[in-house]
């Protein structure tokens, strides 16, 4: 049996391994393969280092090919022992440790090296690049110690590093030489929006800033700029750019310019040596993004083992992997003769979209804030399609441009994509490949990820892949991700539904279901209460209640018990009551045969065992004694628990009872995504247990500590400190603003704890503490909504409203005529 030719790959990174995958896919038996890697680990996804740093992924998550892949395909992996020399004469490579191997075909995939600007101090310990796992480990180590970090370079990589370090708790300053961030990918307007968003997240962004020196004695202590400013730092991340790593090729005498010269089949000036990835120069172009690499690897494999098709350069697009900030750019947006801009700005939503058109072809796109149509624009751009027929609607995105504005259905949108439209930019997977994978039996997101790698990396295309699953499988696909559809009646998420309610001015539930193509005639018991809440939150002035879309407790304004009777809890402001109120409660308990009166955890009294027919009457009695509904049954403000505070307690620092009553008077009656509890403690001894409430106040001598996001329950969560304020008025203002932010942005049935876990405390601080104008506006919206919701539902029912809810339609007595 003749021995197979030996393929040696230098570089165990994304390009080297992808090239091998493509070769194996075409002809698994062609070569004996050895891969040399400088790093002591298996093949992982380098572009996922940012989410790894940000703590959104673990190393296991970003492995592309584990050890079993090498074993299964008979590939010898030599890791941690880099190749140091290529001898073309004898067709051998030599490694650092002196190992020699001879090749028949050699593939150089050495990638690129980070560029370190040679300022004084650049070699101090604590100056790191952002290129591999070791760099991430060093950054995580530094982040564990906390303190200040400086990132030099406001490009894609630098901003992702800054974001990761910031999430890890460091105070981050970004130093960028150019006047706007990511100037190679974004235009000025989008660059400004991005800067603004990052600053609101607590990063300091210095543009037009030129580094003079990295200062420090034996280790990094700071960075000095040419204008004399000094920024303290315990680490400096240098992310100013990358350079093709061409050293081995150059020393071996291959033709090298900025990168290793290759032809359309990725062959270098030596016919038995090929090269792919960031280390090559093709047709004068050097690429530093991942998508071209996939195309190169396909061409290489085609040329080596199948029909040569050739590589003709790549058009690239960019996405920033900073969670919560959506940025997309593609093509040419520098403008120039014959170029026309179409621009859409939506200041409220923070959206900026710009597409650049030349000769009726799309040549560039910059999207900020809403990047959903990025792939569609990119597809139009790559195909060079004539956009004249859809020009009027082009800027509004695919749904409008292709559906005449009628269809916003995301399934239709993916259905309309062509088979070679790119779905996953990280792994270079087209719609056709995803559909083939689904047709081959991959019925879940995970199966698609395993099968064709789409959505397996940064995850920004997860929605598209899910829509493709739904498109291919119809009702058989249920959805699964965190950000999943509201319920099985729709493919929209909670957030999307809320946004569309506002955008399309949808006012009633049937209208929402019609406009958003609900798949059921009248929803289900999950989506109807959620929609009712979203509508009342969006349109407080005009909202009309739909009792049939309320859970029983909210429809009956009492808590249903397991025997079908109800319990009744009148409000006791701040947990304070009077002898008259107590007498009225005692009388009511007697009169309606309450089987139990219990003191609740929220400092009030719960009257148990009331029949639904008796509810209006007991409410009338309680109203007569001055009491109103305590909303103990609602996704609503429940109670404000207090201690006695400075009026009585020898430790009290402020009037916590008084503040509690004022807070309850401001907030009662407001509907929320879930129940909402407040407490005010008069001193740090915290007798009112304010640190496990949705909003808690701890009074101290100098003011009020405001705590948010706590709850008891199954998953106990202590509050986070939002901020400290000096006066009662401020405490009330922040409380109203926080509640309104929660009301407007949390998903229905999310308590504040999971909501804050999801959006991050920093985000809440930014909206409530740092953004003064925004806080005042939130408070104003809350108080406005309260004008419409502070009506005692008990009084309305006692006066006869919705009486059918409390009465039988008829009563049947045996052997007697009824009804009529």
């Amino acid at each position, binding site marked *: 049996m003749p021995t197979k030719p030996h393929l040696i790959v230098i570089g165990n990174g994304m390009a080297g391994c992808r090239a091998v995958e493509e070769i194996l896919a075409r002809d698994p038996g062609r070569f004996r393969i050895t891969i040399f890697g400088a790093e002591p680990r298996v093949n992982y996804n380098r572009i996922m280092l940012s989410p790894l740093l940000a703590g959104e992924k673990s190393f296991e998550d970003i492995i592309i090919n584990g050890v079993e892949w090498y074993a299964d395909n008979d590939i010898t992996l030599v890791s941690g022992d880099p190749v140091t020399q290529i001898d073309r004469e004898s067709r051998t490579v030599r490694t650092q440790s002196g190992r020699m191997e001879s090749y028949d075909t050699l593939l150089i995939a050495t990638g690129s090296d980070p560029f370190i600007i040679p300022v004084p101090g650049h070699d101090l310990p604590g100056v790191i690049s952002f290129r591999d796992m070791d760099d991430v480990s060093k950054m995580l180590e530094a982040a564990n110690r906390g303190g200040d970090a400086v990132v030099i370079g406001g490009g894609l990589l630098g901003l992702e590093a800054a974001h990761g370090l910031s999430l890890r708790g460091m105070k981050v300053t970004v130093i960028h030489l150019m006047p706007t961030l990511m100037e190679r990918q974004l235009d000025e307007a989008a660059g400004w929006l991005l800067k603004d968003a990052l600053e609101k997240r607590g990063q300091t962004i210095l543009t037009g800033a030129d580094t003079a020196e990295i200062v420090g004695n034996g280790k990094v202590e700071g960075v000095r700029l040419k204008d004399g400013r000094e920024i303290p730092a315990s680490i400096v991340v240098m992310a100013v750019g990358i350079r093709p790593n061409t050293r081995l090729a150059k020393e071996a005498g291959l033709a090298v310019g900025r990168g290793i010269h290759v032809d359309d089949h990725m062959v270098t000036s030596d016919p038995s040596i090929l090269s792919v990835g960031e280390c090559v120069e093709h047709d004068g172009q050097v690429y530093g993004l991942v998508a071209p690499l996939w195309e190169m690897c396909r061409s290489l494999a085609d040329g080596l083992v199948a029909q040569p098709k050739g590589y003709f350069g790549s058009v690239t697009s960019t996405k920033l992997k900073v969670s919560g900030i959506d940025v997309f750019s593609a093509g040419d947006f520098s403008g120039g003769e014959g170029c026309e801009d179409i621009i859409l700005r939506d200041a409220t939503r923070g959206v900026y979209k710009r597409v650049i058109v030349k000769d009726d072809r799309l040549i560039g796109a910059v999207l900020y804030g809403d990047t959903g149509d990025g792939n569609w624009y990119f597809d139009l751009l790559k195909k060079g399609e004539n956009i004249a027929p859809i020009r009027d609607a082009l800027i509004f995105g695919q749904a409008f441009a292709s559906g005449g504005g009628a269809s916003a259905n995301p399934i239709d949108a993916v259905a309309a994509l062509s088979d070679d439209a790119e779905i996953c930019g990280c792994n270079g997977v087209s719609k056709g490949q995803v559909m083939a994978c689904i047709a081959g039996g991959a019925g879940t997101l995970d199966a698609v990820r395993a099968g064709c790698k789409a959505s397996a990396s940064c995850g920004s295309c997860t929605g598209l892949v899910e829509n493709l699953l739904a498109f291919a499988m119809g009702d058989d696909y249920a959805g699964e991700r965190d950000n999943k559809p509201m319920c099985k009646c729709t493919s929209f998420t909670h957030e999307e539904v809320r946004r569309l309610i506002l955008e399309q001015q949808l006012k009633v539930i049937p209208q929402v279901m019609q406009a958003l193509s609900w798949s*059921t*005639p*009248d*929803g*289900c*018991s999950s989506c*109807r*209460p959620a929609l009712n809440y979203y509508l009342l939150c969006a349109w407080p002035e005009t909202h009309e209640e739909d*009792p*049939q*879309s309320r*859970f*029983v*407790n909210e*429809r*009956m304004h009492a808590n*249903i018990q*397991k025997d*079908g009777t109800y319990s009744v809890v009148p409000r006791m402001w701040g947990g304070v009551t009077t002898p008259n109120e107590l007498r009225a409660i005692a009388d009511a308990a007697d009169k309606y045969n309450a089987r139990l009166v219990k003191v609740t955890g929220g400092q009030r009294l719960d009257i148990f065992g009331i029949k639904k027919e008796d509810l209006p009457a007991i409410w009338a009695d309680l109203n007569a004694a001055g009491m109103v509904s305590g909303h103990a049954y609602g996704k609503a403000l429940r109670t404000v628990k207090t201690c006695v505070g400075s009026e009585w307690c020898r430790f009290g620092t402020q009037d916590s009872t008084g503040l509690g009553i004022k807070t309850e008077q401001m907030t009662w009656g407001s509907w929320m995504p879930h129940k909402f509890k407040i407490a005010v403690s008069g001193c740090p001894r915290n007798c009112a247990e304010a640190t496990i409430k949705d909003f808690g106040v701890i009074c101290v001598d100098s003011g009020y500590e405001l705590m948010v996001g706590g709850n008891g329950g199954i998953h106990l969560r202590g509050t986070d400190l939002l901020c400290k304020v000096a006066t009662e008025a401020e405490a009330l203002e922040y409380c109203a603003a926080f509640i309104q932010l929660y009301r407007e942005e949390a998903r229905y049935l999310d308590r504040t704890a999971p909501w804050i876990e999801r959006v991050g405390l920093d985000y809440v601080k930014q909206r409530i503490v740092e953004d003064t104008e925004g806080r005042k506006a939130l408070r104003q919206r809350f108080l406005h909504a309260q004008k419409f919701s502070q009506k005692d539902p008990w009084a309305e029912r006692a006066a006869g409203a919705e009486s*059918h809810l409390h*009465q*039988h*339609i*008829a*009563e*049947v*007595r*045996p052997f007697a*005529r*009824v*009804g*009529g």
Partner: protein
Amino acid sequence: MVTADWLDIGPVDQLPALGARTLAVQGGEEIAIFRTANGDIYALRNACPHKKGPLSQGIVHDTSVTCPLHNWRISLVTGEALGGDKGCVPTIPVKVDGGRILIHRGHVLAGVA
């Protein structure tokens, strides 16, 4: 039309769409009368097969109701629990004639001593 077999329990418009009312039965089990979005009327014993939750207080959607106690979904047509749950609640024959709801006497009084 009231006959010995059918009891008139009132006009259809006493029931809100997607809502329910109860029919008390002296000496017997309470019955829930439902109205769907397109106006069809159904009747079930007002007790979920799971823990006897009052189905009349559930959310009605399509031709099912979700029990207010533990979210079991019950078919208004067959009384069977839907989804993964197992159980069945008796259905009571009911019809609409001239805008009035008629319910079957024999079924209503089943079990009444």
